[in-house]
């Protein structure tokens, strides 16, 4: 275990975490005095954060070959400790393909968001402190997914919750920021405490904190105390992933936090929760073979999917709407991962990756709108596409991706999820999984509806007078959005390569628990499992795109050769009142076009459901804390029966 050479890739995981924390400390040590440059109030500190995140991403990218392609599991002991007397002593990192997969997602999102932050945060106070917290948050999440030790997972959860709460409240002048941070703090701390309780219960039983060793010891010796620990850990990680019933917190936090932080909360923090649940169910307790555990994850996933998409339809704030969609997409991931089939896990991870990309893009677009107009209220905005054409195009790419419109990446992964759940239904003969397919398909359309609403009320429609001087956002912000948009398109067009390079190795790692245990130096009787799957459906995005391009070229040539672009524009100036809009006997302002009520035809039929949901989501933190307690109680009862 002695890697003498400093450039040995076995050191890279710890380097990736270290550079981020080091960045945080250097920025903090450099003091809080803002620089004089109006375009970058944090001065060199922003560059330190950027370099730290870039370095972290590079270290992880260098691990793709050994871990993803060659299937090596990196077990790394800090301070040359190791196993002594059969027990793991000291802190370990263990990086298998699953860890690396999540780490890559996190590092990418953090890096892109750091680029965006430089120009985005120009109007704020205390920007140097922002970067300290930013690096701490990034380091915390990365540490969580690379850790080989359950207590360190808890420590990292604490660091990231602390940083995330502070960043949620960063814009203290924004209405509701402190309230959102307080809610997050209360429920987040309940979650962290639940994780700590779970860790204590496990340590008391098995005298070890090492994940691999726990995974080798627990499955044969399940008793009520371990089941209790499982319930606590599950609820703890659920609060980090914001899945039902913790979804209202996400909406508040996203609504108040700066957009660059929303990217991290939705693209990174929720993923750490999903990662925790996967480690828990696939590795530590190896419960994914049990029908009841599959049922729970798939059930919670489907409920999250549907409830949050309907909640999103009822929103009239851009960022709150995105927040609910975020949880809806996490529902897809959880349901797919819960299927416990190779196709399902692969599809779930693929969707997790896509979610980080497109949701990051959408939050950045929302941030761009906020940066230029000062609001995210759907009722007040409109017609921005003429003022911010690049942002509009980038937003549309994100919107198409999340709504599962071919050929963007959201479709590629959702398509695998539909097949996986249907395949599971056919294989098990259980009609319940069929319901998941149907919910997933319908949710996808509702997502599309929701984003049609956003594009109609923010980017298209009529431009209000006060936004006539709005400009396109600076290049740095467009660059960050452009990177994510390009990734959305590429991962959508080459689903086979993405699966082979990233998600299949990760799915294989999730199935091969034995390998995870033996790599750390512990014994297990679990056999190695070969993972392979066939997709029932076909979808060739490249060929489709090629045909579409030829067709489009044909149509355009004919159109341009004809009189298509001979246009004359009407002016809206000096139009007499009698020519103005007269809809349903009311003036434009009172017609139902703008804002939250665009789909009243749908909402009218679901009015009882929406009324019920409206009453349920009271916005009072006491209620949400109560939900957490009830969820914990239910989880405990369920685990006692299920395991």
């Amino acid at each position, binding site marked *: 275990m002695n890697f003498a050479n400093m450039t040995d890739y076995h050191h890279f995981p710890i380097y990736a975490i270290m550079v981020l924390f080091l960045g945080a400390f250097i920025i903090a040590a450099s003091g809080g005095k803002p620089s004089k440059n109006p375009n970058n109030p944090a001065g060199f500190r922003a560059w330190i954060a950027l370099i730290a995140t870039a370095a972290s991403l590079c270290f992880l990218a260098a691990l793709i070959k050994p871990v993803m392609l060659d299937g090596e599991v990196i077990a790394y002991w800090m301070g040359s400790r190791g196993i002594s007397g059969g027990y793991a002593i000291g802190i370990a990192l263990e990086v298998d393909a699953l860890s690396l997969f999540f780490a890559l997602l996190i590092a990418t999102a953090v890096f892109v968001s750091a680029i965006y932050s430089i120009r985005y945060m120009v109007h704020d106070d205390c920007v140097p402190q922002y970067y300290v917290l930013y690096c701490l948050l990034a380091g915390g999440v990365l540490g969580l997914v690379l850790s080989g030790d359950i207590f360190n997972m808890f420590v990292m959860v604490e660091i990231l919750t602390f940083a995330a709460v502070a960043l949620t409240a960063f814009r203290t002048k924004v209405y509701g920021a402190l309230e959102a941070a307080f809610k997050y703090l209360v429920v987040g701390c309940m979650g962290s405490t639940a994780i700590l309780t779970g860790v204590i219960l496990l340590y008391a039983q098995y005298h070890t904190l090492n994940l691999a060793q726990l995974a080798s010891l627990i499955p044969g010796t399940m008793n009520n105390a371990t089941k209790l620990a499982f319930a606590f850990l599950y609820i703890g990680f659920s609060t980090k992933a914001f899945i039902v019933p913790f979804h209202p917190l996400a909406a508040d936090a996203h609504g108040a936090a700066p957009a660059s932080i929303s990217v991290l909360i939705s693209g990174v923090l929720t993923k750490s929760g999903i990662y925790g649940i996967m480690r828990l169910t696939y590795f530590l307790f190896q419960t994914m073979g049990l029908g009841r555990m599959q049922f729970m994850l798939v059930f919670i996933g489907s409920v999250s999917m549907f409830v949050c998409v309907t909640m999103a339809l009822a929103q009239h704030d851009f960022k709150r709407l995105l927040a609910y969609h975020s949880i809806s997409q996490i529902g897809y991931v959880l349901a797919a991962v819960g299927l416990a089939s190779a196709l399902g896990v692969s599809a779930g991870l693929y969707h997790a990756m896509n979610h980080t990309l497109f949701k990051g893009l959408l939050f950045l677009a929302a941030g761009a709108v906020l940066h230029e107009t000062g609001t995210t209220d759907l009722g007040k905005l409109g017609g921005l*596409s003429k003022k911010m*054409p690049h942002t509009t195009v980038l937003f549309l790419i994100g919107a*198409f991706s999340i709504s*599962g419109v071919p050929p963007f990446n959201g479709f590629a992964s959702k398509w695998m999820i539909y*097949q996986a759940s*249907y*395949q599971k239904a*056919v294989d098990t003969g259980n009609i319940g999984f*069929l319901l998941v397919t*149907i919910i997933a*398909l*319908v949710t996808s*359309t509702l997502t*599309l*509806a929701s984003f*049609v609403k956003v*594009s*109609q009320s923010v980017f*298209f*429609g*009529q*431009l209000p007078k006060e936004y006539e001087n709005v400009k396109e956002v600076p290049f740095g912000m467009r660059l960050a959005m452009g990177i994510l948009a390009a990734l959305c398109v590429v991962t959508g067009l080459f689903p086979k390569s993405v699966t082979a390079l990233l998600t299949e190795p990760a799915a294989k790692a999730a199935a091969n628990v034995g390998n995870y245990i033996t790599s750390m130096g512990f014994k297990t009787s679990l056999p190695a499992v070969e993972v392979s799957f066939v997709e*029932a*459906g*076909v*979808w*060739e995005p490249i060929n*489709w795109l090629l*045909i*579409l391009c*030829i*067709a*489009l070229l*044909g*149509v*355009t040539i004919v*159109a341009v050769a*004809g*009189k*298509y*672009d*001979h*246009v*004359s*524009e*009407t*002016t*809206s100036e000096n139009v007499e009142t009698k020519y103005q*809009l007269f*809809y349903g006997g009311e003036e434009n302002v009172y*017609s139902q*076009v*703008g804002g939250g009520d*665009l*789909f*009243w*035809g*749908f909402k*009218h*039929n679901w009015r009882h459901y929406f009324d019920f949901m409206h009453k349920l989501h009271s916005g009072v933190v006491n209620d949400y804390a109560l939900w957490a307690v009830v969820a914990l109680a239910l989880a405990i009862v369920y685990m006692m029966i299920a395991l």
Partner: protein
Amino acid sequence: MTASIFLNGLQYLGYILIFPGFLFCFLCGMLLTGIDRKLVARMQKRVGPPILQPFYDFFKLCGKETIVPAAASRTTFLMAPLVGLAALVVIQLFIPIRGFSAFSGMADIIVILYLLLIPALAAILGAAASGSPYAGVGLSREMVTIIACELPLVLVLLAIARTVGSAMGTGLCFSLSEIARYQVENGSLITKLSMIPAAVAFAMVIPGETGSHPFDTAEAETEICEGMHAEYSGAPLAVFKLSHAVKVLTMTSLFVALFFGGVGTGITAVDGVIVFALCVAATALFISFVHAVTARLKIEQVFKYYWTVVSGLALVSLVLAWYGL
């Protein structure tokens, strides 16, 4: 070698541009709408326009001036109809005509369900880009109609996937060419008892998807001035009219391919004529007849109808297919 690649390329280009691509879509789609208009007129005791009227309308519109409103986002406004039309024609290439299919193994039924969203989305974005509040109301209704139709369509397609899959031994099957092969071996899907409710449900979805009576709330000339097309004029409007015609063809030929597939004659031209005749019958029954005897529903009624009656029928089919009946 180069010559064969060149010939192949030419063949595919022919597929895209002539049959079953643009020219075929243009002619057949326009004919279908012409027949539809004539039939509705006759059922309502009117003389009606000549069957070739859609062609005249199209060329006349192309000659008219195109006006872009000042409030519109020009590029999106003008590009939307073109993208929608191209996407629709590409879908038509994937739908098998009896034994013949231009591009098989590239997209299957669930993918086609989502590809069908692209033309609708193009129309919606074009309408949104026009900046007109009438278009805003129109697109809101269009989107609700899409949501309404989605659930029954999904259920129908899953039922078909199960029926064909269990017969083919793969458990489930989404591939259109496999569905066509199944029907060649076992006869049309409509002959299976469990598929009859699904076929009825799909038939009921056709007028909703194509936006004809009583589900034309999104256009509603008398109420919101053609809704999504309110600000369109000239050639872009002509392209939208053409897209509507092609969509009629796409939906009916998809219906024929899914439920009335079977042994082909081996001669593509004859097969094409047979399929087109079936499309005409489907149009007459599910679009013209329904159009002639119904009045426009309100949008919430459209939604309710699709999510209760039609989805119920499709669900019956799915459950029957699930238990192998």
